[in-house]
């Protein structure tokens, strides 16, 4: 496992995209913190980046990498190696390199400028989101043979999680405006890791956003330690479930 992981990481690092991603994040974070008048506001702007760019880069890069590594995978599969080991090494290698990029690009600036609980939560959700979208990309790439279709699907998935899902939520909200659906909303947020991370960070940061009765309901859930732990576990489930499904599929895949 370690050996393959090592070679996957070496291979990814040889690919300059991760380096570019790191520098991009770093420049962006630093300029945000220097431009915004308060670092708390900087965190808010950074949140948007973490919620949009991190999932996008994670899912796209991972999917493309998997498709481009078809040869590498083929080579490895013909060797005396467990398929599970190979696949988990791919997963691990992608996650480790993208997380490292995120930690350098966003984590370090946040710790320098705003090492508050909010900042920590932001970093944690960024790391989790990276891993989640690597897992989703892996599942998509192993399920779809054709590269073009696979990458298209992955873009749609990203669009779904960052935009369409919230559109659906808004639609549901208006359809059921006359019912007390606040509690149900908490359940629905679990279905979207991006939304869940967003709420986790916001509740730590911008309590004023959560207003009125609804705000109280959300705060009572997400604001407590138990709610926080449940949310984090849900995010972990978002890693484990697609990851595990992709392993199952890879075990049965013909190369």
């Amino acid at each position, binding site marked *: 496992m370690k050996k393959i992981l090592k070679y996957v990481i070496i291979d990814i690092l040889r*690919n300059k995209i991760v380096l570019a991603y790191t520098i991009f994040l770093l420049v962006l974070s630093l300029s945000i913190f220097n431009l915004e008048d308060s670092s708390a506001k900087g965190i808010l702007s950074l949140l948007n980046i973490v919620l949009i760019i991190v999932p996008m880069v994670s899912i796209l890069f991972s999917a493309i990498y998997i498709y481009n590594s078809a040869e*590498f995978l083929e*080579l490895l599969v013909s*060797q005396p190696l*467990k398929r599970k080991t190979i696949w988990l090494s791919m997963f691990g290698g992608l996650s480790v390199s993208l997380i490292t990029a995120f930690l350098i690009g966003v984590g370090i600036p946040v710790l320098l400028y705003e090492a508050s609980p909010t900042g920590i939560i932001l970093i944690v959700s960024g790391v989790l989101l990276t891993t989640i979208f690597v897992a989703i990309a892996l599942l998509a790439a192993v399920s779809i043979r054709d590269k073009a279709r696979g990458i298209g699907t992955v873009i749609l998935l990203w669009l779904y999680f960052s935009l369409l899902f919230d559109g659906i939520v808004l639609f549901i909200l208006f359809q059921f405006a006359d019912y007390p659906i606040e509690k149900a909303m908490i359940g629905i947020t679990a279905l979207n890791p991006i939304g869940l991370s967003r709420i986790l960070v916001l509740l730590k940061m911008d309590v004023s956003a959560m207003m009125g009765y609804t705000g109280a309901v959300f705060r009572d859930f997400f604001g407590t330690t138990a709610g926080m732990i449940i949310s984090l576990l849900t995010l972990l489930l978002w890693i484990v479930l697609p990851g595990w499904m992709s392993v199952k599929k890879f075990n049965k895949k*013909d190369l």
Partner: protein
Amino acid sequence: MIIANNINKKFGRLKALDNVSVSCNKGECIALIGPNGSGKTTFIKAILGMVLCDSGFITFNDKNILHDWAYRSKIGYMPQIGRYPDNMSIGQLIAMMKDIRNPATVKLDDELINKFELDKLYDKRMRTLSGGTRQKVSASLAFLFNPEVLILDEPTAGLDPVAAEILKEKIVAEKAKGKLVLITSHILSELDDLVSQVIYLQDGKLIFHKKIEELRADTGQEKLSKAIATVMLKGR
């Protein structure tokens, strides 16, 4: 050594392998022959566990390969088209393979690397290599770990005559050491002095599995290519 038992594999509607049962033993050099799309490569990949059979099973040294992966350490595989990570150099690739296969347990056989003079190209990236050089790399890797079984998919395709001759000599030498060699090739003439048995596949079906002497007797042809041509004509 390798026994395939009623294996079936479908790709969509296409039957790539249709109830194929074969038994391959040590010390043999077996030619896998058949028209294009007859299932030769699929069969090889099935043995390697790269393609999973829909039904039937394959055993390697009496162990089902389905839940085993370690058996692959006893196989050297040379793919039809050697595809390797683009960003790696030959040296890195060979180092990685050595690392993965843990050569502490076997004696490395770098004869081919030396004869193909690959060590001079160690710094070249895989994507810059010509098809022939890639084949040389594939061949070197297949023999590198001194495996008990060699599976060579179109080994001489793309090789220059000198390299092809080196490879053929190597195959003969390894066979002499009592190894099982499985070869597919379109160029039947070059198999003449190599093979001891012939497996003939068509449309995923096993047509026959015969010793070369039997085949010659049956068809009355001395040359393998002629013998196969006779079989193919008969089959029409």
